[in-house]
């Protein structure tokens, strides 16, 4: 490291330094607030447009703080489209997919963390390498597969390929490695089978892990777009993102309607995200896999 020139000493270095630190803090705070405003602005604009009347939107009379608010966009969208059905589809698909993926990854994590077996590291690397291979690369073949399996266009066509994810394996293995092996071995000596050890010793200690895995999977499937777009064909089975695109195709430049629906579709996940931020942050920071 190069040695920088030392700054000239002032008579009261403590005071000057404190003043400088104060100025820096103000500058940093201002910068952070500015960045936050830039990030918030588009979301705020979505809300404003969703709550504004058509006349205001068309007349270009929108202002940053709207004078009158209306729910007419929501009413129009809710009567013109099966929004509640789509909502239910999204909830069902996200919950089932997340449940499958969490269970399956937890089981695998237990095996990788606590059991010794031939091929352990090869299988582990193979499973993790599938993370590099998202659906975009294989969408044509996957489409053929679900067609041949006879599930094309059904919930399962979305759920099964989405649940086939190794994203939780690494996190689960890491977490379960932290459980003292003595605990597992003691239960084994007492005659418990592996399944029983898993269910009665390991699982109760895995609650934070379960929350992280579950919320990550939920976020992923709730917002998933490319694969459901291909796998679903029946309007009544659409998830919210697909419905949103469909609605935009029908409504075109009716931004009020589009934004009203966009708001409806993102609110549940945004609320969950804010409420359980801790788990999401841990999930991203620890596994970083998205």
């Amino acid at each position, binding site marked *: 490291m190069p*040695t920088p020139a030392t700054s000239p000493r002032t008579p009261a270095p403590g005071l000057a330094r404190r003043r400088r630190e104060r100025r820096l803090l103000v500058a940093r705070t201002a910068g952070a607030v500015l960045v*936050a405003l830039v990030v918030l602005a588009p979301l705020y604009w979505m809300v404003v447009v969703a709550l504004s009347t058509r006349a205001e939107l068309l007349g270009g009379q929108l202002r940053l703080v709207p004078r009158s608010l209306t729910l007419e966009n929501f009413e129009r969208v809710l009567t013109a489209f099966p929004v509640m059905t789509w909502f239910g589809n999204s909830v069902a698909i996200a919950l089932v997919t997340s449940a499958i993926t969490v269970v399956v990854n937890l089981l695998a994590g237990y095996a990788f963390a606590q059991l010794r077996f031939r091929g352990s590291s090869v299988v*582990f690397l193979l499973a993790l390498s599938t993370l590099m*291979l998202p659906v975009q690369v294989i969408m044509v073949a996957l489409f053929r597969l679900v067609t041949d399996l006879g599930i094309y266009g059904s919930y399962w066509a979305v759920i099964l390929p989405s649940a086939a994810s190794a994203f939780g394996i690494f996190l689960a293995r890491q977490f379960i490695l932290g459980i003292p092996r003595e605990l597992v071995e003691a239960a084994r000596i007492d005659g418990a089978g592996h399944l029983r050890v*898993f269910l009665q010793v390991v699982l109760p200690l895995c609650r934070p892990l379960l929350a992280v895995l579950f919320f990550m999977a939920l976020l992923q499937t709730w917002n998933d777009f490319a694969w459901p777009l291909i796998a679903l064909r029946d309007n009544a089975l659409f998830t919210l993102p697909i419905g949103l*695109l469909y609605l935009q195709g029908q409504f075109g430049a009716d931004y009020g309607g589009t934004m009203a629906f966009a708001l409806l579709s993102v609110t549940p996940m945004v609320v969950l*995200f804010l409420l359980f*931020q801790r788990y999401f942050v841990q999930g991203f*920071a620890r596994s970083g896999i998205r």
Partner: protein
Amino acid sequence: MTSLAQAGAPAPAEPARRRPRRGRARDASPGESLAAYGFLAPNLVLLGLFVLLPLVWAVWISTQQTDGFGAGDFVGADNYARLVSDGQFWRAVVNTVLFTTLVTPTAMALGLGAAVLLDGALPGRGVIRSVLILPMAVSGVATALIGVLVFDENSGVLDGVLRALGLPDVAWQSGGAGAFASVVLVTLWWRVGFNMLIYLAALQGVGSHLHEAATLDGASAWQRFRYVTVPMVGPATFFLLVMNVIYSFQVFDIVFVMTGGGPQDATSVLVTYAYENGFVTRDQGYAAAIGVVLLLLTLAFTAVQWRTSRTRDLTE
């Protein structure tokens, strides 16, 4: 791959290191192996059926001339030969690479900047951090539609702001460069939070004593950033580089919804082009070939990254 997934983590006490001590000699009793594969079976069946099988199948389909969704005729490497002379394909390749080289460094730089800004004590730090990661909760489709709203050439709020500042309007939708820029900007809005989050986690591992030592040595704020912070978050940088590049190679939601690849293919990327071929014109053999190219690109990048990171680890 393991180190890749680990890079972003502060890795508390790293329990995995205990493993070798347990020894390999006495491992793998037949019963335990059986149990292990029993636990792995559900995952392996799902991955095998819905990831590995389609992967092999995709390579097979890419050697077929298909008409609609039915079985096709074997044509060998014809689809790949067609790709080589397909101007639209090359346009998509160039756009994908351009998108990657714009989004990756910018998202990482902004993410690091925001992380440094929010690392120290700051009033309202928690709230601001929540705001910055909020876009991660918004779906790609909704993000793209908000983008359409903001960048609309007739009624968009951004042009209004530009005009108010005395700047000229930008053809965000009808102009190729403008449309490309709009896609990049929306992507950045969506992804900077993730980059910041990983850097924040990495910064928490740096610890303040190094900064204090550097300050006592008279290092300026920039020098502390350049010679203390940046090297210390190296693993996170490597991890994010891989993550951002892979994401950018496979970008779909934002482009598909915002521009559909237009105007005149100005924003067409590999996945939107593959989708168009596979599910609009229904030339599935050709689409599968594009998918294989995308896979090869990803693998090539990963291999290069892996090698450079290994040499870096060895030299440092």
